[in-house]
Every structure is written in structure tokens, then in C-alpha cells.
């Protein structure tokens, strides 16, 4: 224990510290002044924005292969436990903004919560976000495990907290999977440690065992067990089963959180490990290829059957998770970037979809907003929301005008093709078709003219008031901000994907 951690760069750690501190402040505030609601949200949003601001310096924008910033390093120029390079910073930024949007979505709901519930929910969100940002920067086994668990456990609580029947079964499904997965992750960490003899998840550590062929299988085992453990969080088949239950049972903003921050955290964790072994010149990872292919296929097939939009989005998450890890089958640096890019595109589009649904919940009530058939004629009734939804769906489908999704598809397929994994690429192509079917099925309902025979009365739009104004008047401003922000972000990044993809660096 002679070596102590000497370098601590608090500014670098701010993306982690800010939400954690925010959570602490909120809990303290809640103890001091009870029944606060809006204050908690403001504090939480501020802390998230502070964290987000702190990541900007690390983004890869305009920099060529920017030098990674490190902290928590061992003294003699040794390894660091926290590295904030462009990929890390981008994922952190995404996690923080996603959390902020999730909070915006849940803001209008908070009247429904029990007194004091707001503080708990907001602080749990912040805590899980802190876990997500931490795991992105983690380069040692301890931080990695703790951060990942920090990102997971609060979500179980968040799902369970609503107390409804469906929430409980969702929470149980999520919990059991989380527990077992954590066990697997712990095993994976142990195996990694056994294989490399190092507690660091870095290339240096991985390269240390190159000389010893008997340890290689152990390393491989460590990686695949880690994939299995993280697969749960990413909703990869067959670790996905909790997803529809939890999405459907959880409150809408929490489902959005699961679809956003949780996925970012999981991918960040996976990327840490993949990047560690990438320099080994490893051949393609069949395990990831199989999981990816099965996830895409099953997710799309099941999504095609869903009649509730939340469940549809849940299954679409499963399918998209397959796309997210698709490039990782080719273990390389470009695969890491591709995977990150796809994740960003997916998160942005999914968030927009959730935001639109949240707005519709406020206008039409939860039951109608969750039923696919009730979306008929949405384009006529709420053109703004319908257009935003259409953009989100097309981005998920990867078709113009959702060019971001298209570019993400290009990015995701590229490493696969570069590694000449033809079979996987062709499976992905077929899944692109299935995916289009999934999202167009929804979109077709949205753009259809409303059925005159429908029993639901048309929304009472007074004459002379445009549908746009009617929409704006009936949706909570926070939700509108969320819809607007994500929609604008999606449009901007579709016109210039570089703004998003470039964050990841080159």
C-alpha cells in the first residue's frame, strides 16, 4: 500500500461528481425542507447540466485523436483508474442529457407521487446517472463493478417505486436478472484478474498476459462472461426478458430512463472491456456476433406483434441493442466508435419517441397513448407531435429523413464488413428490413386518416385554433421542452451527423 493515488483532478471527475452531489443535496434538502418538488427538479437539472458542461472539454469535436485526459493515476507514470477520452466524454454527456430529459418528462407526473417521493425519485435518477458516467471513465475493476451496480440498482428501485401490480412484476424481472448478471460480472472480474494479474481494464493489463498462452482462454472467458453480464443491461437476447415487463410496468419517464441512461451505462461498461482487449489483435468475437444476430431478429419479430407502443419500444430496444453491439463483433477501435455512434442515434430517437408519448399521455390519457391502434389519424390531430414521432421512428428504422439513423446503420455495418463477417452482415441486412417493417407499421397508423367510425370523439379543437396551438396549449411545458430539444437535436444531427458522430473522435 505504499503507492497512493496521487493525482486527483476534480474537474475531470465532475461529470460523475455533479450528479452524485446533486443527489446528496436533494436528499439533504428534502430532510430540511419537506414537500418540495420543483426545487428538486431544478437542483437535479442544474447538477446534470454542470456535469454535462464538464464533459464538453473532452469531446472529440474538431480535434484529431485528442489526447485522453486521465486522473486517479498511479504515481510513477503508471496506469490510471479514470480516463476521460472522447468516447468516454461523449457517453457521459449523452447519459447526463438523457437523464435531464428523463427528469423533464417525469416533472409533470410528480403530483402523482407521494410526498417526499419526488426527492427519492430524483436522487435515484441522479445516482444511477452518476453510475453511468462513472462506468464510462472507469479503467479498473473496482470502479467498473461499483459504477455498473450503481447504475443498475437505482433503476430497480425506480421501477418498483410506483407500487402498481405491473410495476412489481417488472421490478422482479429486472431485479432477478440484475442480481444474476451482477454475479456474472463479478465472476468476469475475477477471471480477468486471474488472467491478467492486474486490476486494470486497460490494454496494458491485457497485453501483460500475451506471453502466457495458458491464460488466454481465461481472458476470453472473462470477456464472454462479462458480455453475458452486460448483455442483461443492454437487453440482449437471451438476457432481455425483463425488458418488456419493466418498460411496461414502469412509469413512462423511467422506461425512457431504462431505454436511455441504462443502455449508455451498459455500453460504456462493455466498451471499457472491448477497448482493453482491442489491441490484442483479437479475431472477431463470435459470442457478440451470435448475441447480436439473435437480439436483432427476436426483437424485431416480437416488436412486429406488439399492440402497445411501450412494449413495441421495449422490443425495439432489444433489436436495437443487437445493432449497438453488432460492430463490436469486430474487436477494433473503429468498432468502438461505430457502436458508440449507433447508441447515440438510437438513444436520441428513442427519447424523442418517449417524449412524444409522454405528451400524448397528457393530451389523451395513458390508456390511449399506449395503444397502437389509437394513433390512427394522429397526423391530422396533432401534426407537430406526429411529425416528431415520424422523425423518431424513421431514425430508428434508419431511413431518410432520419438520416442520423441511416448514418448510424452505415457506421455499425462498416466494422462488420471490414472484418468480412459476411453472414452477420447479411443477417443484419434482413433485420434492417424487419426493423423497417416494425417502425413503418406504427408510422402507417400515424399517417392514416382517422377512421370516421371511430368511437373516440375527435379532440375538441375550436375553430380558428390551429392544431399546433391546440397541442401546445395542452402539453406541460417541460414535456414540450423535451420534445422540442430532442426533435431539434435529431433534425440537426440528421443534417449534419458529424456534430454527433464527431463527438466520439476519430
Amino acid at each position: 500500500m505504499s503507492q497512493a493515488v496521487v493525482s486527483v483532478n476534480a474537474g475531470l471527475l465532475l461529470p460523475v461528481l455533479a450528479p452524485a452531489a446533486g443527489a446528496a443535496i436533494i436528499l439533504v434538502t428534502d430532510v430540511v425542507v419537506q414537500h418540495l418538488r420543483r426545487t428538486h427538479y431544478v437542483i437535479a437539472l442544474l447538477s446534470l447540466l454542470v456535469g454535462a458542461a464538464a464533459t464538453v472539454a473532452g469531446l472529440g469535436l474538431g480535434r484529431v485523436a485528442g489526447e485522453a485526459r486521465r486522473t486517479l493515476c498511479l504515481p510513477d507514470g503508471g496506469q490510471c483508474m479514470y480516463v476521460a477520452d472522447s468516447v468516454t466524454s461523449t457517453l457521459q454527456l449523452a447519459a447526463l442529457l438523457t437523464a435531464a430529459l428523463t427528469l423533464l418528462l417525469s416533472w409533470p407526473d410528480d403530483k402523482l407521487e407521494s410526498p417526499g417521493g419526488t426527492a427519492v425519485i430524483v436522487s435515484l435518477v441522479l445516482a444511477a446517472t452518476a453510475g453511468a458516467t462513472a462506468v464510462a471513465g472507469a479503467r479498473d475493476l473496482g470502479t467498473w463493478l461499483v459504477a455498473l451496480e450503481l447504475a443498475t440498482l437505482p433503476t430497480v428501485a425506480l421501477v418498483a417505486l410506483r407500487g402498481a401490480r405491473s410495476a412489481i412484476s417488472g421490478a422482479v424481472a429486472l431485479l432477478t436478472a440484475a442480481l444474476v448478471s451482477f454475479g456474472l460480472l463479478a465472476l468476469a472480474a475475477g477471471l480477468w484478474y486471474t488472467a491478467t494479474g492486474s486490476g486494470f481494464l486497460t490494454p496494458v493489463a491485457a497485453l501483460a498476459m500475451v506471453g502466457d498462452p495458458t491464460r488466454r482462454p481465461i481472458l476470453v472467458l472473462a470477456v464472454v462472461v462479462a458480455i453475458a453480464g452486460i448483455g442483461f443491461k443492454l437487453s440482449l437476447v437471451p438476457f432481455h426478458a425483463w425488458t418488456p415487463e419493466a418498460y411496461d410496468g414502469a412509469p413512462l419517464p423511467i422506461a425512457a430512463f431504462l431505454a436511455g441512461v441504462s443502455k449508455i451505462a451498459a455500453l460504456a461498461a462493455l466498451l471499457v472491456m472491448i477497448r482493453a482487449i482491442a489491441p490484442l489483435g483479437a479475431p472477431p468475437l463470435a459470442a457478440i456476433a451470435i448475441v447480436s444476430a439473435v437480439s436483432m431478429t427476436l426483437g424485431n419479430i416480437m416488436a412486429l406483434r406488439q399492440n402497445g407502443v411501450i412494449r413495441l419500444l421495449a422490443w425495439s430496444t432489444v433489436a436495437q441493442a443487437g445493432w449497438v453491439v453488432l460492430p463490436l463483433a469486430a474487436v477494433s477501435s473503429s468498432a468502438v466508435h461505430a457502436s458508440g455512434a449507433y447508441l447515440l442515434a438510437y438513444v436520441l430517437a428513442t427519447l424523442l419517441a418517449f417524449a412524444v408519448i409522454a405528451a400524448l399521455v397528457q393530451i389523451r390519457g395513458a390508456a390511449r397513448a399506449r395503444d397502437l391502434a389509437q394513433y390512427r389519424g394522429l397526423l391530422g390531430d396533432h401534426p407537430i407531435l406526429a411529425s416528431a414521432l415520424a422523425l423518431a421512428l424513421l431514425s430508428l428504422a434508419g431511413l431518410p429523413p432520419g438520416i442520423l439513423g441511416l448514418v448510424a446503420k452505415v457506421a455499425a455495418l462498416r466494422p462488420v464488413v471490414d472484418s468480412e463477417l459476411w453472414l452477420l452482415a447479411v443477417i443484419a441486412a434482413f433485420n434492417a428490413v424487419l426493423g423497417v417493417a416494425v417502425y413503418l407499421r406504427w408510422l402507417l397508423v400515424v399517417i392514416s386518416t382517422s377512421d370516421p367510425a371511430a368511437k373516440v370523439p375527435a379532440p375538441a379543437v375550436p375553430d380558428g385554433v390551429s392544431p399546433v396551438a391546440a397541442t401546445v396549449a395542452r402539453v406541460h411545458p417541460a414535456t414540450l421542452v423535451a420534445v422540442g430539444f430532442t426533435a431539434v437535436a435529431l433534425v440537426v444531427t440528421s443534417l449534419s451527423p458529424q456534430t454527433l458522430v464527431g463527438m466520439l473522435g476519430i
Partner: protein
Amino acid sequence: MIHLWLPLLLVCVLAGAGAYGVIARRNAVLVLIGVELILNAANLLFVTTASVRGDQLRTGYVLTLFLITIAAAEMGVALAVILALFRDRGHIDLSEPGS
């Protein structure tokens, strides 16, 4: 290296037993115990490796402590959810389909 056989075998037995518990048991608490077994297998692996490797940072030992702590936190949340489940349904049988 012959002396490593025993702890490593134990790791396998623990992990296998945990996995069995997870798969075969329907009672939520028993499943939790299965998960604990898996975690303990990981702990044992860390300790064993650390004792062989002579790691300067004592990573293995430190992580074992970490894991024990995390497991405790995890169990807290898990038991809360199981409690909620019991309140909701009157049982904690995981083989019952959710609503």
C-alpha cells in the same frame, strides 16, 4: 501450482451451486442465496489469485471487500422488492407469471 487446484475447484463448485440455485429454485429468497453463492465464488477467485500473484496493489483483496459491500447493498434492494412482491401477491414464487 498444485495447491491452486483446491480453491479453484471450490470456485467452480460455488459458482455451479449458485447457478443451480438460480435455475432450480422458485422461491425468490433461495434465488438470492444462489446469487450470493456466485458472488462468493468470485470473491474466492479474487482472493486465490491475489495470494498467488502477489499484486502490489492488493487488488484481489480490495475487490473482495468491494464485492461484499455491493452484495449487501444489493440484498437490501432485493429484499425490499421481494417484500413488495409478497405484499402484492402473497407469495414469492418466481415461477408464477407476472401480471
